[in-house]
């Protein structure tokens, strides 16, 4: 890996349009076979239903890094919306399906901090009193990773260029709450984003303040949620970035919906889409 990284020095940024996929494919594929990592994708219902292109980018990036990607079919929602509203019985029903579908996975990769936190943390609480299922929940928790975390902590990706990433323009990063405060994933997405060749990273005020989505909170208390997202996108706009990047499509749907309503043409992108240059 170190040698590969040396092939791709920072200084080749201006040339990047010519080397979209800098000859890494063959070498990376060698790594694939060596690494022999298989990971099952828990795509999340929001990506499945509303943003399938994000799921495609996740698959592309993982494959480019040599991961054999599996996708247990008929996966749906992790149960977070019902868990968050206190309907734990309904949440357990949905959680049970996830436990079952991913029982044999080596790794479970989740392109969402919020859903990954549900699988990894909230399930332990949901099944705390069930001696059998708690063991299954623990097993699932031990192999579940959020997408950026999986790249940096498991695949040991040091920079975005090995993913074949390239970007023209500026971007600002929104660290989503569950990713940052439940999973403690802070540096990994930053590391990936700031090493994307050609990407100009912008800073925004109040980056760590919640965007106001909060699941059912956004429709139960729309007036408060709207106020929060209003503040948030004002900061996004003030950052001067052309693209808003995050690791959670739910937050991006919230901020993107508010930006669009205000006629802004700031784009929303999942980190995986930025890393998957092909998608742009």
């Amino acid at each position, binding site marked *: 890996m170190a040698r590969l990284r040396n092939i791709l020095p920072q200084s080749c940024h201006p040339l990047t349009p010519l080397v979209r996929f800098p000859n890494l494919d063959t070498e990376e594929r060698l790594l694939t076979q060596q690494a022999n990592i298989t990971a099952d994708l828990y795509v999340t219902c929001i990506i499945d239903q*509303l943003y399938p292109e994000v799921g*495609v980018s996740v698959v592309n990036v993982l494959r480019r890094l040599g991961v054999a990607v599996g996708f247990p079919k008929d996966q749906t929602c992790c149960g977070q919306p019902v868990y968050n509203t206190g309907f734990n019985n309904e949440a357990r029903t949905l959680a049970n399906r996830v436990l079952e579908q991913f029982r044999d996975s080596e790794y479970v990769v989740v392109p969402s901090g919020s859903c990954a936190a549900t699988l990894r943390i909230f399930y332990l609480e949901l099944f705390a009193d069930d001696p059998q299922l708690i063991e299954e929940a623990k097993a699932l928790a031990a192999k579940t990773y959020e997408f950026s975390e999986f790249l940096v902590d498991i695949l040991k990706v040091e920079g975005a260029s090995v993913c074949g990433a390239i970007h023209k323009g500026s971007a600002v990063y929104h660290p989503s709450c569950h990713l940052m405060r439940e999973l403690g994933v802070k540096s990994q997405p930053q590391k990936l984003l700031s090493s994307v060749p050609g990407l100009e990273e912008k800073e925004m005020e109040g980056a760590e303040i919640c965007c106001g989505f909060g699941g059912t909170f956004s429709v*139960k208390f729309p007036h408060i949620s709207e106020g929060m997202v209003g503040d948030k996108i004002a900061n996004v706009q003030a950052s001067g970035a052309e693209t808003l990047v995050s690791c959670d499509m739910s937050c991006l749907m919230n901020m993107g919906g508010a930006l*669009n309503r205000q006629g802004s043409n700031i784009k929303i992108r999942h980190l995986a889409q930025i890393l998957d240059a092909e998608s742009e």
Partner: protein
Amino acid sequence: MPEIKTQDFSAASVAAIADPKLRRALDRVASGFEVARLARVADATPEVWDAWRQEAREIKAHTIEHLDHYLDLLHTTVTAAGGHLHFAKDAGQANEIVAHIARTRNVKVATKSKSMVSEELALNPVLESMGVEVWETDLGEYIIQLAEETPSHLVAPALHKSKEDVAELFTEKLGIPYDEDIYHMATTAREVLRDKFMEADLGISGANFVVAETGTLVIITNEGNGRLCTSAPRIHIGITGMEKVIPSMQDLSIFLRLLPQSATGQRITSYVSMTTGPRRSDDEDGPEEFHLILVDNGRSKMLADPALREALYCIRCGACLNICPVYARIGGHAYGWVYPGPIGAVVSPMLVGLKQAKELPQASSLCGACREVCPIKIDIPRMLLDLRKKTAESPDPSVRSAPVIERASARLYARLMCGPRLLRLAVRFGRVLQKVERAIPFFSFMTKDGKWIRNAPLPPLSRWTRARDLPILPKKTFHELWEKGLSRDDS
């Protein structure tokens, strides 16, 4: 107890958001506190800060787990120092104890230093109805007493008021010329209150901590008013929640650092006043009588509930309010009772009853910022979730939130998500609806380009599209893309 308005949360929060003056006040003060707090974290270094929090949490957890022991010990030490320890089961009992002391000792004037518990008890009206003059002497409390309002923040009770508001209030209530110079206004208040300190027969204080080992009441203030309340009048009554006890003086040290640094970002407050019993024979001053009233008023319910017990670790620093993006929009009064913000959304339902305060735990995006700043690492988001669970699962239909509709939607949602075939059918139906709408915009719920839903006709989506657009359903789901070729790894 003061009037409970927690049930009006929705309407009150709508009104609060529409109030630009409130927003300015909230922006000014709360964010200033947070900036100062962050500076203290940096001074300590984040690692040391975290170690302090952990230590404080362990002390609190230990004390609450052994509360019976420490309350017994406190009883011994307060009595040994010549004071009286009272235990009040509820607000009525606590107020009666104070009223009894005031009546039998012929109290005419009482001065008070800041006490959230006395707000919780609504003590002032009880004393006033007996003909006792009650003077709040903390500047913020004095302002809201004059304005006949309630505190909107745990440590900055008049946070919602601008200096212009206060100048107008002083003109109206004290009959002085309008002057919005803060120093002048503080001087005016000081002059009024100075006389009252001299006149008072009774001083009432809260307690930030009560040290079991020595029977010592500890209050921290910035104005010195606390010290005057506890030492000048002939009787001192301290009133606080039973959870404020800590084992020893040694344990106090960490809290004297964490509380002010988390609250206002001060390294230490201007005054730290410790009172142990009444004046001794060789003391130059101090009260002749010392009473400490420990209040339960619903706290034992929290103690009995393992999921909510840690709410009793709270030292009322207000850091969770200062960081909370919900509090930042709606302020303290919308929460409808004495304790606002994230910790209030946990404490209020426990003290006034979930039935009346069931909306409070729902009014959070569960972002977790409160837990991150809490000096005791109280897991507020988990407790909000627990209260949501208690609301959803309550056997009492009047506690369950929107019983029929919400429960039915949760069930329907789970049903839909458990049956992938049903889900696919629903998605197909949605796509057809989109196509029809695009061809004949009967409901006109889409944008002209057909890429976004702008005016969803029905809740909950219509509540989303008040200020936000919603992406339309794409041509294919990820499942369909996977089946249609993505599953083949031909990269």
